[in-house]
């Protein structure tokens, strides 16, 4: 099976050539196959979030290549990257990152609206998705009216909106108590069984238990995985 995502010699250096130069990633080679559930472990500052941003097309490597289904995306323009994100990538963040002025339903609709899908169709799909994460009763609630676990489930529904190839989660349980965190982990396991590919940056051992592969990263290098 071909790789869904592949990185070759990816380096990320901030403030290159300046006195405050910071090397975050050194020669990262990574292969992610469809249907995997990968966890990335590492101390803070190890560069694990940066990897996620680079394979999520939110950031470009300083050098090296990133391929998504064989296509080199490492030198694309901002707007070309945005198109890849909307079609292929779903993000889940530690801070949930819902838009506070929008209801749960509208938050899930957002990626579809950005995609140009009409209101009626995106509404229908958003309701479906929210029901699938057991938030069918919370459609018109604003984020401030939802619990942490509920917000994260809205965020997962949003990540699924455009049927992405991969869902990238950055500490998805980091802001949740252990019980709620477990629910979110179970939801991700279920989605993975449904065929969704996951790459999860986490400290949470309970996620790692279910991972198909674990990657350890330290000082910008992969140590195992």
């Amino acid at each position, binding site marked *: 099976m071909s790789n869904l995502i592949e990185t070759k010699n990816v380096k990320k250096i901030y403030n290159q050539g300046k006195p405050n130069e910071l090397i975050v990633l050194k020669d990262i080679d990574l292969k992610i196959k469809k249907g995997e559930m990968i966890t990335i472990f590492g101390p803070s500052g190890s560069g694990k979030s940066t990897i996620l941003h680079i394979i999520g097309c939110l950031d470009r490597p300083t050098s090296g290549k990133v391929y998504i289904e064989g296509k080199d995306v490492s030198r694309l323009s901002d707007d070309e990257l945005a198109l890849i994100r909307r079609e292929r990538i779903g993000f889940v963040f530690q801070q949930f990152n819902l838009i506070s*002025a929008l209801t749960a339903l509208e938050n899930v609709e957002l990626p579809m609206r*950005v995609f140009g899908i009409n209101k009626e169709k995106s509404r229908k799909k958003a309701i479906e998705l929210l029901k699938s994460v057991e938030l069918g009763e919370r459609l018109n609630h604003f984020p401030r009216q939802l619990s942490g676990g509920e917000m994260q489930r809205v965020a997962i529904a949003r990540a699924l909106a455009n049927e992405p190839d991969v869902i990238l989660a950055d500490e998805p349980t980091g802001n949740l108590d252990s019980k709620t965190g477990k629910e979110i982990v179970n939801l991700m396991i279920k989605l993975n069984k449904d065929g969704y590919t996951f790459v999860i940056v986490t400290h949470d051992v309970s996620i790692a238990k279910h991972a198909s592969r674990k990657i350890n990263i330290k000082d910008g290098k992969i140590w195992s995985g």
Partner: protein
Amino acid sequence: MIDLALKNILRTRARTGLTAFGVLIGITAIVALGSISEGINVMINEELEFLGGTIMVTSKEAGGIMMGFSGSEITSEELDELESFSGVKEVVPLTFAIGEIVPMEGPEYVIIGVDPAQQEFYVGKGIELDSGRELESNNEYSVLLCYEYAENHDLEVGDTLEFEEEDFEVIGILEPGVADQDNIIVMPLGAMMDVYDLDSYGAAYVVPEDVGKIESLAEDIEDDFDDFAAQTQAEIAKQASQIVDTIRIFTLGIAGISAVVGGLGVMNTMIMSIMERRREIGIMKAVGATNRFILTQILTESMIITLIGGFLGLILGSVGSYSLRFISEGLATAAVTPQLALGALSFAMLLGLFGGFYPAWKAAKLDPMEAIRYE
């Protein structure tokens, strides 16, 4: 996109309202002041139509449009010469005298002497009367009063009025609100020269034989009579349009400045708004919004704000211009033309575009990762 924009600007209602209000003030100023200068333009055009195809001859020192009030005037010999000038069909002499002076306000009215046989040349389409009859005999001691004067002094047709210790009979009251007929008293030329002891004329209208050659006739008159100024309608129109242009530049300048200040308010608001929403903009980008999407989004928001201000400003400005006409009892004509209305709205939209562009561009260029991390 518009529903999202509306949602965003309604989140900070007070700020949106105040920003729109800033735009409103500018657009109101443009509409109100613009309509006044349009009104002056319309008024001057009406006046020009009245003058018709005649040449106005004045003594040079009396000069220009403010005719005949200086010492130097047209003598009867010069009038005869004008009459026999080649290409001249008729000469209509006029005399002027200033009526009572009201302190602080200037002359209350102007007395004009015109030969009854020629009175239609003075006012072009003939004198329009509210009541009574037109002047008939050149030596009759009779007057036509402007409506306002008759009202103020409680005079009616048949009453008498004293000029230079002579009794004049009021034979007609002029229709109010007609150009050239307000603030004047008209009496027969002969009677006026008699009573005021005049032997020269303040100005004369020259009617050409061929209206098509009016320009060259005016030039010939100026060439032949060194101390005459001969102005055709075209020249008067030019002078008038210069005056209108000056007024227009001045009023629109003031209005424009206030509108630009409103536009800066929009920029300020939008910058603040995107600073507060940095994180959200990052999220939008993460879920796939392109730079262009964000740019359009922010521009839509700023244009909605300025269009609201512009639309309300148009209404308020129109009300202002209408009340001005009402308060001045029709004396100040102000016209909100469709072009002015459209211009004001387009200007509001441009303010939104220019005021919103810098913040929108800044928002579009935000690095999604940094924006998401922003607390």
